[in-house]
């Protein structure tokens, strides 16, 4: 090899050392000032980068601008980092942000394991935590904390809306394709419960090994043979996309309705309407709902021309606005001193923003946003880019989530 060792060493060492020496020292010196610091912690390189990623950061910055923080005398800084979907990396960054960089609130954090790990760091350090990206309902259940608010969705709400509301809309016989791990089984069990409760029938389940399954054909044929009206996909991410593509190739899409239990508009965009048409799914935000959501989405789209915000990114926007509102109300010093106090103030005020409208935050930290059951349009019905959803059923916020008593959150004394 003719690569000069010295040149290589010099270049890599200089590149590698730069962030190492600048990162820990620079922010530490500023930690004591009265600037409000918001940390956006999410996946920027892995499977959830389109669901959260840099667009969440854009939404947080937009929220600071829309709130008019500068005019209200608030100085707000935004930090962001990639947790690589590893809980120890996420928890490590969170600790470092609190201890060295003076971060006051962490927002987003997709991936349930990372979301829960960061929640316990925030509880320990008494800093505000607004989770938007993680699905686990544990965040407002057994592992709830006085420092946690959970914004846009959770698995209970998805199962309840997609399961219960689809039956109401006529899809009363179901077959499940389930990823063989806790998340898949939970979604399957919860959704089955809602389907039967609403008067529907579950005709069968196929569980497949997770991860590593890429060929779903035999399961899809089994589903087809039962003649179920709805095929429920109790999986996430690449598995969902693959199973939808294959269902399309097998011609299931015409006769059977496919219900994706965890899917975002960004995934629909990636699949394309030709493949995704007819799919039913639940989100709590759609950019084309009303004047306000359209205005909000257009402000974001200016900055990210190739993307529309989904419910996670909209949740980051709404969460930041509401947090800033609470801070402006209680004073920066008090909010910085105690994350629990800031969260308590947020719970005491109704939320009001362009993305979700007016909502209420429950004492376990659950934001009661309405859940919308959507059907994906056919290419012929879609009139403009990102015009993807038809609204089927709306579940109001106070019915969309797990009842307070069933969550066993220690904060609730009922």
């Amino acid at each position, binding site marked *: 090899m003719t690569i000069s060792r010295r040149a290589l060493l010099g270049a*890599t060492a200089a590149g590698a050392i730069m*962030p190492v020496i600048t990162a820990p020292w620079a922010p530490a010196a500023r930690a004591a000032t009265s600037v409000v610091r918001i940390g956006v912690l999410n996946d920027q*390189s892995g499977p959830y980068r389109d669901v959260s990623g840099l667009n969440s950061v854009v939404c947080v910055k937009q929220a600071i601008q829309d709130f008019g923080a500068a005019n209200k005398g608030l100085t707000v800084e935004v930090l962001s980092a990639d947790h690589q979907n*590893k809980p120890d*990396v996420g*928890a490590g*960054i969170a600790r*470092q942000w609190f201890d060295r960089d003076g971060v006051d609130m962490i927002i987003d954090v997709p991936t349930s394991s990372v979301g829960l790990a960061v929640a316990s760091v925030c509880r320990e350090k008494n800093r505000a935590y607004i989770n938007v990206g993680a699905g686990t309902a544990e965040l407002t259940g057994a592992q709830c904390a006085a420092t946690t608010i959970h914004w846009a969705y959770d698995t209970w709400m998805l199962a309840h809306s997609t399961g219960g509301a689809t039956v109401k809309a006529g899809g009363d016989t179901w077959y499940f394709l389930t990823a063989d*791990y*806790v998340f898949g089984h939970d979604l399957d069990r919860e959704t089955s419960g809602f389907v039967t409760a609403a008067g529907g029938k579950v005709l069968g389940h196929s569980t497949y090994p997770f991860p590593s399954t890429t060929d779903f054909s035999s399961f899809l044929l089994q589903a087809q043979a039962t003649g179920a009206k709805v095929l429920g996909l109790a999986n996430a991410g690449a598995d969902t996309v693959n199973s939808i593509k294959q269902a399309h190739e097998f011609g299931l899409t015409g006769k059977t309705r496919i219900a994706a239990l965890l899917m975002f508009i960004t995934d629909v965009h990636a699949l394309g309407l030709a493949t995704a048409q007819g799919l039913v799914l639940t989100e709590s935000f759609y950019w084309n709902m009303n004047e306000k959501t359209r205005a909000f989405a257009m402000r974001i789209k200016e900055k990210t021309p190739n993307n529309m915000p989904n419910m996670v990114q909209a949740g980051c926007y709404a969460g930041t606005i509401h947090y800033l509102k609470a801070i402006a109300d209680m004073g920066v010093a008090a909010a910085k001193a105690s994350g629990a106090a800031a969260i308590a103030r947020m719970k005491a005020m109704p939320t009001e923003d362009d993305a979700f409208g007016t909502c209420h935050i429950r004492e376990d930290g659950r934001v009661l946003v309405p859940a919308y059951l959507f059907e994906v349009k056919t290419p012929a019905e879609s009139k403009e880019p990102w015009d993807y959803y038809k609204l089927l059923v709306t579940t109001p916020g106070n019915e969309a989530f797990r009842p307070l008593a069933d969550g066993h959150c220690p904060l609730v004394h009922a």
Partner: protein
Amino acid sequence: MRGQRNTQIIAFLILIALVIAAPGMLYPVFVMKVLCFALFACAFNLLIGYVGLLSFGHAAFFGLGAYVTAWTAKNWGLTPEVAILLGGVSGAALGTVFGGLAIRRHGLYFAMITLALAQMVYFFCVEAPFTGGEDGIQQVPRGKLFGVFSLANDMSIYWLVAAIFLIGFFLLNRAVHSPFGQVLKAIRENEPRATSLGYRIDSYKLIAFILSTFIAGIAGGTKSLVFGIATLTDVHWSMSGEVVLMTLLGGLGTVFGPVMGALVVTAMENYLAPFGAWVTVTQGLIFIACVLAFRRGIIGEIGARLKLAL
């Protein structure tokens, strides 16, 4: 020989001084993470560097150690030292079984068998109820050392981690420089000759394997207490890959190499996090650069340059 000894002792003293001074200069939680991974990499290095066995399934022992420590500390309320020890013992127990099977084959087949067995452990952890599946075991209490000293403070647990790291490090180093270690090196250099000299090489390999997995379990258990979590990341095959990267980068078969490798890899993971996707890209580039330009690794190259055995 005598001069070599002295430089090693000096290097040890520098290491101890660095471990003591580090939390003053760097963020303590970060240093603890480095120490846990350094111990893990040292354990791995015992096999690949001194016996020539490339285990591609070391995450299984690391992860099992993490799960057992986290579970016993949380559900049985064991004190940290007992929980970590149990983590090590369970790593060693698993290592006895896996090692017993895997050492019957050599080279690539050995690596593949360890990888396959480790994947079994991974899927067991995905399914088993006690691991919490995707969510992992969360909110593990750090507890009180010997039931007396609270470890809730970052600095107090730091000294525990530093002590565990140094003890593990010396234990491994002692093993390498003992007559037992000489036999291991003989096996690495020429296995048939070691057999012909009358050594039962399978027993030696197995003992080295068990020792390595015990330390790996200890490292995993310590890490789970530091962060208060044990999750699937710890048993995933990419963790096995990361420990290979650390050891190669630092210097295969050197005493201090894995520590340096762990420092570099963890620092990248930590300080490049704000730059998003660059972490994995940089890791890949560094690996390529290492293979092309300095095959002996950072410490290995320094040692060769200074003609020292580090």
